[in-house]
């Protein structure tokens, strides 16, 4: 048996200085060979990156441009400080033409802050712009001064988060100037500034709500003047974004708001309709009270009308999302509004089909989402969708579309195959829908979803496989699933960390591919 050297300090000695070349040369050669591979990887990655950098340059300012921008920035910063100094001295000047001096200084500042691509906001703030501008907003100031000051603040609020926050001392006055006593241009400019502030985040939104910005903005939205209503709607949509739903509920309860929404949707002005539709998006997403009122109003018909008729991407996105929110939130929509046989129902389906065919990925996705909610409705809805052009479109998307659309489509197609659940029973299967989908080779696409890293999609896939194995006539489901490698896909979840998925997949495999499987062949 092998005996080891047991003496504690063996005959180890350091390497002699006088050594043969082979000791180092072979090792060096191998290291060089390995290093060459690493260098090539680096080179490959660098070329890929640099090649893309060149692409960037086509769209954006070139590197040489940056040099000029730096110089330009220094000049602009110096100008900003100078103008603020001018404004300061104009504020204290009491003599003849004082008001004119102030307005001129304000206008110069506004121009500086709005003209350049890189407004010197920081420099202006450092020079003390906000307290001066607040002073310029004091009650009784001439309209022109108020307008210029609000405009300056609007541009400052459009900057970085910290810059937006610096407006806090000005907010009460900006809100105050929204009121009925203000001239329309001043009110609109203040709404704009406040919209920028509200868009920054919920902290500032809460401050604005506490300062009572909601009511005057809602009133402003009721304006007949298109630009005013639009600016106010936009500011409101920023203000009620949440995450707390209170503002949305409060808004819909303000008298005249729903009427104004309906009125503006009837208008042919797409831009106004777009901003109003965004208000509806947040109302329908956040407030149950709003949903209850909206579904029973004309809003749904108007939205469906816009969906069917408009070609504007800007408008279609909030319209689709609003409709989706409404269908998802309240069964009244499918039960009472989108009744099978009604014109509105046919129209929405046509609109959705148009969006599914569109080139725009967002439209496709939103449309698929709305459809999935409608497909969750009655058997009649399912049959209507199934017999429409939407189904072949979706089958195509199921195998070819980007992942997020595929998921929505899968959800819809899955919904088409099950009747609404009664009590707590397993939902019954609409067999001819299922068979039709299986005949059009949907199984592999669903198995693809099962293999997805996204748990929700994988679950969708598993649910569909369950339908196939339970519902296909003559019990041929398991065989079909097996043929598409479905067992392998399900067995991946055998030890999955997600317990629900693990149980679901293991349950299916046990039930349909257990001990008895294949015995009768």
């Amino acid at each position, binding site marked *: *048996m092998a*005996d*080891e050297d*047991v003496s*504690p*300090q063996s005959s180890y*000695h*350091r*390497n*002699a*200085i*006088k050594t*043969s*070349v*082979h000791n180092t*040369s*072979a090792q060096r*050669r*191998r290291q060089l*060979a*390995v290093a*060459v*591979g690493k260098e*090539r*990887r680096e080179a*490959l*990655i*660098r070329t*890929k*990156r*640099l090649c*893309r*950098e060149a692409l*960037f340059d086509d769209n*954006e300012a070139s590197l040489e441009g940056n040099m000029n921008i730096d110089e330009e920035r220094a000049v602009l910063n110096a100008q900003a400080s100078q103008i603020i100094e001018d404004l300061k001295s104009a504020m204290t000047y009491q003599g003849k033409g004082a008001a004119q001096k102030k307005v001129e200084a304000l206008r110069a500042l506004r121009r500086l802050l709005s003209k350049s691509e890189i407004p010197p906001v920081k420099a202006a703030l450092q020079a003390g712009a906000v307290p001066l501008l607040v002073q310029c907003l004091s009650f009784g100031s001439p309209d022109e001064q108020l307008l210029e000051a609000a405009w300056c603040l609007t541009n400052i609020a459009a900057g970085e988060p910290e810059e937006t926050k610096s407006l806090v001392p000005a907010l009460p006055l900006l809100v105050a100037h929204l009121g009925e006593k203000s001239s329309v241009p001043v009110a609109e400019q203040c709404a704009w500034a406040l919209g920028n502030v509200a868009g920054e985040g919920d902290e500032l939104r809460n401050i604005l709500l506490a300062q009572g910005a909601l009511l005057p903005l809602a009133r402003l939205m009721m304006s007949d003047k298109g630009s005013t209503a639009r600016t106010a709607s936009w500011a409101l949509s920023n203000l009620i974004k949440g995450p707390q739903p209170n503002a949305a509920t409060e808004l819909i309860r303000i008298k005249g708001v729903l009427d104004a929404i309906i009125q503006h949707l009837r208008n042919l002005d797409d831009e106004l309709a777009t901003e109003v539709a965004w208000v509806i998006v947040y109302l329908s997403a956040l407030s149950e009270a709003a949903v209850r009122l909206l579904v029973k109003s004309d809003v749904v018909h108007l939205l469906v009308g816009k969906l069917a008729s408009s070609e504007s991407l800007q408008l279609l996105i909030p319209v689709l999302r609003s409709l989706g929110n409404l269908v998802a939130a309240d069964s009244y929509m499918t039960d009472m509004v989108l009744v099978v046989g009604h014109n509105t129902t046919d129209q929405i389906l046509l609109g959705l089909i148009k969006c599914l065919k569109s080139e725009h990925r967002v439209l496709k996705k939103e449309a698929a989402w709305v459809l999935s909610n409608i497909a969750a409705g009655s058997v009649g809805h399912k049959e209507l969708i199934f017999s429409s052009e939407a189904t072949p479109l979706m089958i195509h998307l199921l195998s070819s579309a*980007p*992942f*997020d659309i595929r998921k929505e489509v899968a959800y819809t197609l899955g919904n088409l195959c099950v009747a609404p659940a009664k009590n707590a029973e397993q939902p019954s299967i609409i067999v001819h829908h299922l068979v039709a989908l299986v005949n059009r080779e949907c199984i592999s696409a669903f198995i693809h979803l099962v*293999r*997805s*890293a*996204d748990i929700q999609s994988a679950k969708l896939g598993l649910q569909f496989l369950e339908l196939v194995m339970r519902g296909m006539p003559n019990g041929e489901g398991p065989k079909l699933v097996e043929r598409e490698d479905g067992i392998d896909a399900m067995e*991946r979840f055998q030890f999955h960390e997600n317990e629900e998925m693990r149980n679901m997949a293991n349950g299916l495999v046990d039930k349909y591919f257990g001990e008895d499987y294949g015995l009768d062949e």
Partner: protein
Amino acid sequence: MAMEVTQILLNAQSVDGSIRKHAEESLKQFQEQNLSAFLLSLSNELVSNEKPVDSRKLAGLVLKNALDAKEQHRKSELAQRWLSLDIAVKAQVKACLLQTLASPVPDARSTASQVIAKIAGIELPQKLWPELIGSLLSNIHQLQPHVKQATLETLGYLCEEVSPQVVDQDQVNKILTAVVQGMNASEGSSDVRLAATRALYNALGFAQANFSNDMERDYIMRVVCEATLSQEVKIRQSAFECLVAISSTYYDKLASYMQDIFTITAKAVREDEEPVALQAIEFWSSICDEEIDILDEYGGDFTADSDIPCYYFIKQALPALVPMLLETLLKQEEDQDQDEGAWNLAMAGGTCLGLVARTVGDDIVPLVMPFIEENITKPDWRQREAATYAFGSILEGPSPDKLTPIVHVALSFMLTALMNDPNNHVKDTTAWTLGRIFEFLHGSTVETPIITPENCQQILTVLLQSMKDVPNVAEKACGALYFLAQGYEDVGAVSPLSPFYQNIIQALLTVTRREDAGESRLRTAAYETLNEIVRCSTDETAPIVMQLVPVIMMELHQTLEAQKLSSDEREKQNELQGLLCGCLQVIIQKLGAAETTKYGFMQYTDQIMDLFLRVFACRNATVHEEAMLAIGALAYATGTNFLKYMQGFYPYLEMGLQNFEEYQVCAITVGVVGDLCRALEDKILPFCDGIMTQLLKDLSSNQLHRSVKPPIFSCFGDIALAIGENFEKYLIYAMPMLQSAAELSAHAVADDDDILEYTNQLRNGILEAYSGILQGFKSSPKTQLLMPYAYHILQFIDTLYSEKDMDDAVMKTAIGVLGDLADTLGSHVGPLINQSVSSKGFLEECLSSDDGLIKESADWAKLAISRAVSG
């Protein structure tokens, strides 16, 4: 439960092979079938004084092997098995072992000591066997010297097995006290004293606290120094070994003892027996190691930080140290140049002299020159050889300014000596010294060239002539030529070697075919030198390299044809195949890299590939390694055309990836997968299922050496870069692996440089994988599949940034990944990136880095991020 195993143990040592084999089998079966009974039987055998010493010794050895193994995986498996045994069984085994320490039979005691230490190594970290150290220490007070000796030996082994953190300071103090008392001159038994001295060697690592206390340290040092003067040579040797260990562990505590230590070591070097003298020299080499490290950290800048200050012990000792070392150079052995493993006073002294030169630089030159001048022309070969050796030893360290004038004078003398000296030792050392001259004083970075058009021809003539000398001299001449060529590696279009190129290659080929090329590793040196010559070829000499291709191919072909070889011959054949594959690898790399030669080379690729595939049929790790490297080079040279070889090569690729045991083969194969990815691009797709399966298996194996894991991660990146969005199906497996490895590697144990270095390699591999995957998916409709991982990737980079212990390579890759993330996922990750600390502080840090590559990656990342955030 215990069984009688005496006869089996005796049979296991029988001279009759079949009896031995049978006995070994029985023991193995016994161990597998009933471990408890097996261990009890062995410990009973070991403790029984009436049993023959041979069976007892083997019982202890088998016991030890049942508790410990070299291979890490097996080691922890054995430890687990021991821990899971019945507590009564373990107690009984331990009792037998402790009892054996009192046995009158020395071999039984010694084996028991080692087994006890192994068990302690398993149990003490688990807070088990707390009474062990106490009961050992109580033995120390026994009167019988042999018990005392065995106990000290056990304590020594124990300190070797167990890490210092496991033993509390109180027990450490007691162990040290017992050990140092045992070493004391007043100890009557020299066996006890020797065991104590050896135990101290292992216990030194435990003595941090004691070495920080002046009184305790003084005491320990005094006892160690006294032991170096013992009557017993083994005690003296062991005491010097302790001094060597102290010099590296407690360098910064030595100042007040250096004067005494110099006196002791000088006396030992001059007067003591060789084993003792060697350790005395080793003490100074070890001090050099420490000071070279510290000065390295200073980096030439004396204000820079090092944890430990340099005390310049070598510089202070220089005037006395150098003469002492020079004296040793004259004590050569007659045949030392033929024996590769030789180690004697002269070799140790020269090695130490070389370290001293590296430590003090220019200062050594005036101290050594008189010795060289006085001895280099003496009739006694020993004096000429010692002078030459001294010269060769000090060529690294001193500045070229100092050395170049001397080398100019010495060069022609050396060339003459290499041709004409009657003594082989002198010629051997002369050729080696020439190699050192070329290694350190010749090359594109050296200002004043040593080699001029005038002397180049003479140098080459002498070197080529020396290659016909006896093998050891020829081997050193090859080495000199190797470094000569290396110095011309980046010489540009015209090389001074070109006129001699054909002759050099011919001479080297002739050497490889010498009958005696197997001696002194001559053949290996000749091939490696040939490789270096190929590597430094220029456009002018490329046609000569091209002519070399069929020659080397033919050589390789012949090795494959050889049949019915003895195992000895086969081993030599394998070695030769490895050398030939290595040579082809360098040739392919060289010829494949230039457009001018690539086309001509392509005519050979079919045949070369055919040869490589035949090489794989031989079962030898080194050969596989070399063939793999060569195939990597071939793939790069042939590009997508390599596809036609894939069918034939793939089985060997898979085999390489499965080679856990020879992990270097596995590592190189992983690298070759990367080469293939770059060569084949998306054409590698059909092979990816198999490759990915193997790589994932490799990663989840705890048998595979850890060093292979970082390159496997990088390899994921290579694959993703090659196959783009087709990597989709591997995401579900690869991403969780990357994530969990990332989590593990984010926080390293920073107190260990090796672990930190490995951790950074791992991080780099993971980041390269992310980079490759992100870039692979760029502009594909499937980019959103990566969205779920974006947060984790960012978090990983954030953590790395906050840990502050990544190296430059990781930094560069990490900032690149940040850019890739922004570039590939665009505005979807804008908000995420905005929130991360990396996008601010880390990016800023990289933007202001001195490292051009880091800055370049950071500039790019900044651009990509600004786009993602604004889009």
